């Protein structure tokens, strides 16, 4: 019986294989100035998709700028930017079917922007108000959307990577030709979960794409202290998996690589690892100050490789985009974000009852009792609970309303 897939020949002296022997090239189409490299073939990106892609990148940039400013003004408790990595995130998303699943890490608002998450959706989550489908339980930026096939973000790193393998295996069994994209940082790729995910995906031939945004830092830790050797892409070899390294600031290259990865995943059930080489231009989060661990000079060098400018140039050259159009768009997006933010800030907080719902499918009696005690306590001390006390009776009205609509749910309406 064959117990190994290895076809290795025997040798009779100790020969050590070294990871350094394998250097994985970087796939890139667009030069930093936005013109195509000689030898770069025609892009398969079509006009509408290209415009949608670029628009989502612009939107993400505007959103990040505005929300970072809002955080600095104390209007928002926390924020994380995608800045510098828009091409990696949005380029990959554009290469998928809109009903392919995305399991992101936290810095991937560009994927949601591409799929049509509205400004209101963003703001309701960021402000944890009544409109947030997850009822203000998680910190800002922990978005999720079932409609847009985007799993709600979980803070513990890398947990979504093996989940992507499992989800994709289910998609394969369902036979509807879909795949799952797991996006994560090079830091998270150190977690055991990452290795488990790749191993299971290759053993079980799962239609999953692993996209590592190698952006140079995990908070303050540079890649040189994260791993030795030739990056994350090389790890796929140990699992006999397809892998590609791509210029993560080149939306065209990311798009092409992901398109082919999707084909391999969906048509051949081959999992793929993509390593997108990019740079986290902003701070890790609004709580971080990168000046303590890296130089302005290093950041400036990467600013010159801005993924937005590159794609813009390509679009302008093809006549698919106009500078005036961009100016107006950015203006109107800024206004939209600002106006929507103002409304979201004023929306009421989630109902008190959301403290105990969604823990189990049904609230268990002991928890119901804890909740009733809490309500009685809040009623006795309304001044101490300004976020929930003013709404207690409104919540009851809401409940009554809910009961009312469910009672009539089956009735025909005029």
């Amino acid at each position, binding site marked *: 019986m064959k117990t190994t897939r290895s076809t290795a020949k025997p040798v009779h002296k100790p020969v050590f294989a070294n990871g350094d022997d394998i250097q994985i090239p970087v796939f890139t189409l667009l030069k930093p100035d936005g013109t195509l490299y000689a030898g770069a073939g025609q892009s398969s990106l079509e006009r509408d998709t290209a415009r949608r892609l670029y628009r989502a990148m612009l939107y993400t940039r505007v959103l990040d700028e505005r929300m970072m400013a809002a955080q600095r003004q104390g209007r928002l408790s926390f924020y994380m930017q995608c800045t510098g990595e828009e091409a990696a995130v949005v380029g990959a998303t554009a290469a998928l079917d809109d009903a392919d699943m995305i399991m992101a890490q936290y810095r991937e608002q560009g994927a949601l922007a591409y799929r049509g998450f509205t400004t209101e959706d963003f703001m309701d989550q960021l402000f944890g108000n009544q409109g947030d489908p997850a009822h203000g339980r998680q910190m800002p930026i922990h978005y999720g959307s079932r409609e847009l096939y985007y799993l709600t973000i979980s803070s*513990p790193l890398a947990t979504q990577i093996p989940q992507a393998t499992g989800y994709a295996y289910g998609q394969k069994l369902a036979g509807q030709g879909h795949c799952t994209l797991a996006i994560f940082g090079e830091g998270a790729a150190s977690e055991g979960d990452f290795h488990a995910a790749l191993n299971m995906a290759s053993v079980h031939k799962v239609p999953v794409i692993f996209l590592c945004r190698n952006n140079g830092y*995990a908070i*303050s830790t540079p890649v040189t202290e994260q*791993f030795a050797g030739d990056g994350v892409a090389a790890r796929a070899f140990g699992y006999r998996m397809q892998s590609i390294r791509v210029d993560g600031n080149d939306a065209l290259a990311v798009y092409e690589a992901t398109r082919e990865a999707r084909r391999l995943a969906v048509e051949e059930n081959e999992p793929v690892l993509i390593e997108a080489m990019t740079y986290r231009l902003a701070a890790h989060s609004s*709580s971080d100050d990168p000046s303590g661990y890296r130089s302005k000079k290093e950041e400036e060098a990467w600013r010159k490789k801005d993924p937005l400018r590159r794609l813009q140039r390509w679009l302008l050259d093809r006549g698919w985009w106009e500078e005036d159009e961009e100016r107006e768009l950015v203006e109107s997006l800024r206004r939209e974000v600002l106006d929507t933010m103002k409304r979201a800030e004023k929306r009421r*907080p989630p109902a008190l009852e959301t403290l105990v719902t969604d823990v189990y499918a049904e609230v268990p009696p002991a928890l119901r009792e804890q909740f009733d005690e809490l309500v009685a306590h809040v009623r006795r001390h309304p001044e101490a609970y300004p*976020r929930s006390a003013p709404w207690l009776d409104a919540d009851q009205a809401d409940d009554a309303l809910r009961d009312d609509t469910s009672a009539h749910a089956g009735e025909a309406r005029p």
Partner: protein
Amino acid sequence: MSRMNLLQAINNALDTAMAADPRVLCFGEDVGVFGGVFRATSHLQEKYGRERCFNTPLVEQGIVGFANGLAAQGSVPVAEIQFADYIFPAFDQIVNESAKFRYRSGSLFDVGGLTIRAPYGGGIAGGHYHSQSPEAYFAHTPGLTVVVPRNPHQAKGLLLAAIRSPDPVIFFEPKRLYRAAVGEVPDEDYQLPLRQAEVIKAGEDITLLAWGAQVEVVEQAAEMAEEAGISCEIIDLRTIVPWDVETVASSVLKTGRLVVSHEAPLTGGFAAEIAATIQSRCFLYLESPIARVTGLDTPFPLTLEKEYMPGPLKVFEAIQQTMDF
């Protein structure tokens, strides 16, 4: 004596331990040049070099597994887990390995030198995954010592004792108090006893028991109670396991009443263990049921954090109900 906040006291304890013993090493995510995301390890790499204070790759099971090996070898690792919420990838290494090294080898091997530090707790608008208090999970595993300081003086003295303890210690730091708790801390090397609770205020009518950030909350409730003419005895448990039953029981024998408070959910929380033990020790002396004021039996929320947390008003009401039973 110097005035320090809780973070500075921890930094000072680590500095003291590293200066006194070259076997002491500090490591974890962002612990090196940056000094940790909260700055608990600031300047240690400058002072003691990259071999003794360094960044690890981002892998908690690796950090603790590595630390277990180091401790077995005779080094004294102080590993940082960035947030207590992220200690769970290392759960297997902690509960199956750290906790059982000595037991399974009949003391041929042990990891007594190991200390795991992790910031825990709510009140910082951290929401679901930056606010948990996981002490009860570890309290259920024999072989571990779980310690929670409440102020800078304790933080230094207890951390030094943890680092020098012959058993592996998990040291949960109340991150809400990192900068908020400021106090006098001796400059010299000193240790506070592990496994020993501290009676921080004597009283007659009722015993209030808490640890870490919750002690301050209980103190505020006690002030409200004193105004209502109720005399409270306040105990800081300090070491969650193995815990100081004697100090708590003798207080309850005197007062006849006990309120225990913690941020973690009610069911299976450490207050349940305390209530069961004290009830069997003090049954005939109890004048009312032991009360628990805790988080809800739910994960930790963000927007409604204040409603979730056991605050002074909730503790005060529990005191009143216990008195009026």
